[in-house]
């Protein structure tokens, strides 16, 4: 079960859309903890972290995107939040449509944007399929924007917004002597 929890978290992190989880996922986790089926103290300590972060991530995705694969338990939490903030999904879609139509042109192809980030807090090992990430506080890392955006949202990293590091041509330019 521990591996399932860890995998669920990292798969969620890697995917833009909600991944499919068994409807009984959270109940299974609770049962696993209550029955003390975890393998070690370390696992016991890590499980709440993974579950908390997984749920936050899924709610965030559902709040701003498709709700396909959202579990019933999560749907209830989301409804409470929306009632509290008086934001109906319909109203939000209308608002987003307005902004999208008037201000944001649709991209015609995708590009790989790389950010330079500084790591604010240690984060458990994860992978994007190609590379394994071991982020330690005070490190500086190049990250694909899809990953950096999520990690920045959760205050794991902070993007370094240097002004000149992208202007390779200009940096190579030879200027006249003084």
């Amino acid at each position, binding site marked *: 079960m521990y591996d399932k929890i860890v995998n669920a978290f990292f798969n969620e992190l890697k995917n833009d859309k909600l991944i499919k989880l068994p409807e009984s996922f959270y109940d299974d986790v609770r049962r696993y903890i209550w029955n003390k089926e975890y393998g070690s103290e370390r696992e016991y300590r890590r499980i709440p972290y993974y579950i908390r972060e997984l749920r936050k991530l899924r709610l965030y995705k559902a709040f701003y995107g498709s709700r396909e694969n959202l579990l019933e338990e999560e749907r209830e939490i989301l409804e409470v939040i929306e009632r509290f903030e008086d934001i109906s999904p319909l109203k939000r879609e209308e608002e987003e449509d307005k902004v999208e139509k008037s201000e944001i042109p649709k991209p015609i192809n995708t590009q790989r944007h*790389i950010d*330079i980030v*500084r790591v604010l807090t240690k984060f458990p090992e994860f992978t994007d399929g190609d*590379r394994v990430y071991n982020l330690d506080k005070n490190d500086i890392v190049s990250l694909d924007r899809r990953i950096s955006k999520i990690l920045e949202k959760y205050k794991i990293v902070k993007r370094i917004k240097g002004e000149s590091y992208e202007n390779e041509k200009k*940096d190579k330019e030879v200027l006249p002597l003084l």
Partner: protein
Amino acid sequence: MVATVLKDKGTYERYRKTVNEIVEKIKNHQGLIRVITHYDADGLASGAILIKMLYRLNKDFHLSIVEHLNEKTINRLQKESNNPLYIFCDMGSAYIDRIAERGMNAIILDHHPPKLRYTKVEEVHQLNPHLFNLNGAREISASGVCYLVAREYKFYDLSIFAIVGAIGDMQHEPFIGMNKFIVNEAREYRYLRSIVKDIVYNAYDLPIWQSIMYCTRPYIKELSDRESVINLLKELGIDPNKTYLEGEERDKLISALKRYVDESQILVDRYIINHKIEDAFYLSEILNACGKMGIGSVGIGAALEDEECIRIGRETYIKYKSEIIEQLRNIETQKLNNIEYFFGKKGTIGHMASLLVRDKPVIGIYEEEGYYKISARGNKLLVEKGLDLSKAMGVASQFGGSGGGHNIAAGARIPKIYLSAFLQKVDEIVGEQLKKEGIKNPIS
């Protein structure tokens, strides 16, 4: 041309071969590049150079900042996934054998005396000025070594960080050898806008009373509190909140400060660089403060001109200097025949020892995990008389510890129980070194 700095054709050819191999190695590596750098100003400036260079080369990178390299760190790095290319900056030459024997694919860009005098051992390339008859303590710093690689890709704008790093390592009084070459190159491409003779306090964008109070190069004990500085400025008719002094006001301040320190310590060469923090000395001070306060990544962010990092960096400079000045006020040095020593706090003892040096080397000590960490500092005059702190600290190995460094600045780590015996031995060695009158040693 670099060839003009290196002493002969053979040396230059060896240099070219080493740099070319390193450039190719970086270019051809397809996976992650794992950078490990030192936490001082030179190490962080090196980090800034490598990050900009690797980003432009479209390489994936991951940089970590460490206080010092040891077996434990190397073991931990070796176990990491991704099969990376490792680049060690401002460190690594003392561990080249250990890195090589673990089969790590690595590049060492260091300026400390190397353990093995080879440019390549197994899969480890080493670019170190000592291998090319250059003085690593005086003629080029680690950030200079990193720049020598970056300039091969024509990233001449990164020369300003080599200047910043060299200033951080006190190699700028004056710039000589490869440092001078780098300064000239930065000037040629106009990334170094100008070099001006000015008071050191104009380097900071702080109210002048703060610039004087927090400045530790030079450290003026009599002006290390707010009231004393403001009183002095008022006596001189200078507005304490001005951030820049010129003309008559500047002259008046210089005359007044001459009663505490030599004019040459106040009137310095300021290096104005193409950067949001315009003064290279101020940027090196910010990097140093961030590194020592455990937020080196913010320092590198400031070097990369991130506004938030610059703001935090400036605040950290003030915080760090406040702590340093408070500690300097409270330091009580103990005297042996040839050395002075004191007990201080982690991250500050080396700096404070260097500020306290007068006619004897000063040794700062702090305790960590059953050991004493030691930083020894001399000055140019003592080195010219024969002082070699690298040798003196080297005796730590006789006491179950380790030590080394440069003749002007070195460090050691020894088990706690041997401190007294170790200090006696160092006192004896330094006494012997300084007895040899007439020696004119260069700083190395």
